[in-house]
């Protein structure tokens, strides 16, 4: 994996189910190419404090249907720029899931996780293994399709297509 860190040890910020993209980045802030503007308003309508407490490398954890709603790629971009290194959810809305992989933000689906706020996690991205060091539980994430592993491995779809010029399954 070129651009993506494969071993991550960091703290979990935990939120609930059905976090929609309006809550990840409100529509009024999306019309920009300035990633810092996006990061300044990330999760603003869900937790106005998040932007102040998130540290580089932190892990965002959520329940089901994370990233539902709009197709705005600004949602994973805002999370990535704010410092989030990986998102774990019970499951993801499909456009968010593709967008995150495409911009090089790792996403892990763990249907039965019970990760609590503030937990220390140790993640092996290559194997999809998440160790909850606080609760002493180990989870295995759903395996990505090979094409997504390859896109993420290049750091995103821009790098993937720059290198290969076309898709290969």
């Amino acid at each position, binding site marked *: 994996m070129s651009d993506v860190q494969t071993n991550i040890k960091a703290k979990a910020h935990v939120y609930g189910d059905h976090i929609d993209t309006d809550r990840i980045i409100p529509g009024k802030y999306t019309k920009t190419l300035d990633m810092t503007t996006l990061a300044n308003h990330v999760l603003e309508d869900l937790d106005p404090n998040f932007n102040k407490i998130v540290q580089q490398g932190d892990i965002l954890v959520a329940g089901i249907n994370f990233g539902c709603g*709009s197709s705005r790629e600004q949602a994973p971009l805002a999370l990535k720029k704010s410092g989030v290194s990986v998102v774990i959810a019970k499951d993801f809305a499909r456009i968010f899931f593709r967008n995150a992989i495409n911009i090089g933000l790792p996403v892990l689906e763990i249907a039965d996780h019970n990760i609590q706020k503030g937990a220390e996690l140790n993640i092996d991205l290559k194997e999809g293994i998440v160790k909850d060091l606080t609760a002493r539980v180990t989870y295995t994430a759903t395996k990505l399709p090979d094409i997504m592993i390859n896109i993420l491995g290049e750091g995103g779809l821009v790098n993937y297509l720059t290198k290969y010029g076309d898709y290969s399954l």
Partner: protein
Amino acid sequence: MGQTISEKIISNHVGKKVYAGELVVSEVDGCMASDTTGPLTIKAFHEMGGKKVFNSDKCALIIDHAAPSPNERIANLHKMMRDFAKEQGMRLFEIGEGICHQVMVENSYVKPGDIFIGADSHTPTYGALNAFACGVGSTDLAATMMTGKIWLKVPQTIQINCSGKLQDGVTAKDLILFLVGKVTVSGATYQAIEFTGEAFEGLSLASRMTIANMSSEMGAKTGIVHPKGLELDYDFEAIAPDADANYIKTFDFDVSGLEPQVSAPESPDNVHNISNYEGTKINYAFIGTCCNGRLEDLDIAAEILKGRKIHPDVRMVIAPASQSVLLDAISNGTMSALIEAGASLITSGCGPCVGTHQGVPADGEVVISAANRNFRGRMGNPNSNIYLGAPSTVAASALEGQIVNPKKYLV
């Protein structure tokens, strides 16, 4: 083995029979981006080495989400889109020409049997046309513009079968709200939906677009209305599912007794019979969007409002889905009926639905909207509440200053 509509359309594109679960790389018949997703698409296109789009007749850009531009930052993003379209020789739909999904259908960018990729989550709207249409983000779209292709997992399909005819005064919006309430906002994630049965067969193209549009509110990859009863002004080959197609799930509903539906804050699947919310005071009524800004939507509102005045404590905003809809609504008298009743007309486009400008609600205000989403903060203010209903419900509620069942004005 029999195939669903999605499996058939994808098979036709990849030159072999494929079924749910298979990964494919398919050529696409068209693609588009709006001013929310377009600038990032253009940036990614250049970054991945894109020089020319794969086919300039099959790619389009639409300025609809913040049109006309509300500030200099967005004005510059719009200019970036205009410059790119000119350089590529592709069509750019200007401010006021309409909402992306409406102009794609009106201008035949998408046809029955097509695979269409749009950088907007409501791209499944074209399932009304018997097409396989998926929403993606900006980088995926940049890749499609460059290669003419998309990678896809052939989706499993949920069949939603609705028997019975809708009662007078009950519309396609009520039906799809009811279905979103039953299936839930994550009930069709990664899957395709096929809408089938008597309740859909008599629906106009506009109503079918309302149905397919809200597939995305159930998390679906695409939502396709069975072509039975579909009428277009050109010849087409309809793609129907095989009798022995394999569905992951089938829902059966008799909708002949359905009453108007309302989705309450703050999730589109928080849907109940309108009687649960009658009497809820409202401040703001909005009719428009890719869900319900078409001529039949404005016509039914005008039927209710003609010769009457909206409640003095309510303001009402109308955003026709396209310039063509606006012109039709002017010719048939609908637009004057709405404006004489006290409604305010804004530029055809997404308008207040995406919370950027053209009508942001104040703290504590309640909105009744014909849009498709009522997430917290959706219309630009997290301290307001949004109820979703049919255009008929929005118009009747605007008259009375509270949520009311529109049937008494219609039947």
